[in-house]
């Protein structure tokens, strides 16, 4: 008899603890603990003021949404909407501020990449093996010839693209022709990149000659001199 009552007490204790833990579990599941809409909105505003990065902005937005959902669950839509009306302007301001930071970050990233590119060019120029004056001029002339070839190809592609664009208008924008112009545009971009690469190589050759041997490679002058001789 005594053992039965002990069992019952133990079972009752177990169930009570189980229910308490369940209740606590549901409470712990949510990150937000509601106070008043004004106070919670102020908390969100304080967090939003310190936003610097995209990730921070997203985290504050997520938290604000969690509060809003909690208000909707606990007090219904009206209070949730009231809470939203309090925090939304602050989040908009944080978003604008973030856009300014992002623009600044992009600018700094561009400056950093320019900085490294300049040092990279100088490094390449210092390490470039150099030949005689004539050999260096020949390298540049060969590169110029390559550029001229690419340029002729580029002009023909540009003309092809223009013709295609006109044909597309006449044909009423069919998908296969749009795909075709897409391919041509890709080829144009690839050729432009190739030209830029060879031009860059020439710049490095000129820089290398100047840095290592204080030698000027003035290919235009050479051409002028050659033309004068021919005349």
């Amino acid at each position, binding site marked *: 008899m005594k053992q039965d009552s002990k069992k019952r007490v133990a079972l009752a204790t177990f169930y009570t603890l189980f229910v308490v833990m369940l209740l606590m579990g549901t409470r712990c599941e949510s990150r937000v603990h509601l106070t008043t809409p004004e106070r919670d909105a102020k908390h969100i505003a304080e967090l939003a003021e310190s936003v610097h990065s995209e990730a921070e902005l997203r985290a504050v937005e997520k938290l604000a949404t969690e509060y809003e959902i909690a208000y909707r669950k606990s007090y219904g839509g009206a209070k949730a909407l009231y809470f939203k009306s309090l925090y939304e302007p602050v989040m908009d301001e944080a978003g604008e501020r973030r856009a300014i930071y992002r623009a*600044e970050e992009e*600018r*700094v990233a561009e*400056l*950093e990449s*320019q*900085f490294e590119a*300049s*040092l990279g060019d*100088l*490094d390449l120029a*210092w*390490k470039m093996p150099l030949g005689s004056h004539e050999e260096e001029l020949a390298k540049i002339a060969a590169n110029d010839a390559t550029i001229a070839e690419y340029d002729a190809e580029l002009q023909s592609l540009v003309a092809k693209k223009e013709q295609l664009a006109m044909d597309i208008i006449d044909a009423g924008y069919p998908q296969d022709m749009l795909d075709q112009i897409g391919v041509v545009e890709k080829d144009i971009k690839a050729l432009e990149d190739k030209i830029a690469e060879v031009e860059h190589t020439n710049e490095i050759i000129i*820089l290398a000659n100047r*840095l290592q041997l204080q030698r000027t490679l003035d290919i235009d002058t050479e051409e002028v001199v050659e033309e004068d001789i021919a005349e």
Partner: protein
Amino acid sequence: MRRLIIAIAAIVTLVSCGGNANGDIVISEQNHENEAYDRSYELATRVVEATTYEEYQSAAEKLRAYREAFRTQIGGQSYTIFLEESNLILGDI
């Protein structure tokens, strides 16, 4: 015990001196904007005016070290000034 303390003190001194010998860069917190202008001009000029590859390497290393110091210690406007001014000189070559 005394020997141990002396040994530890010697190690601590060596480590702290070692740090200085490595040339740890400290940017002035009061005058960082002017320092950004001055240092970028001075160091980038040294890079472009180097007459040997070794001279160039040493100057470029120092320029990069200062850029890193401005980035990590100061950031913001002064870091941007350092980059802009350096790029002006480096791009001019």
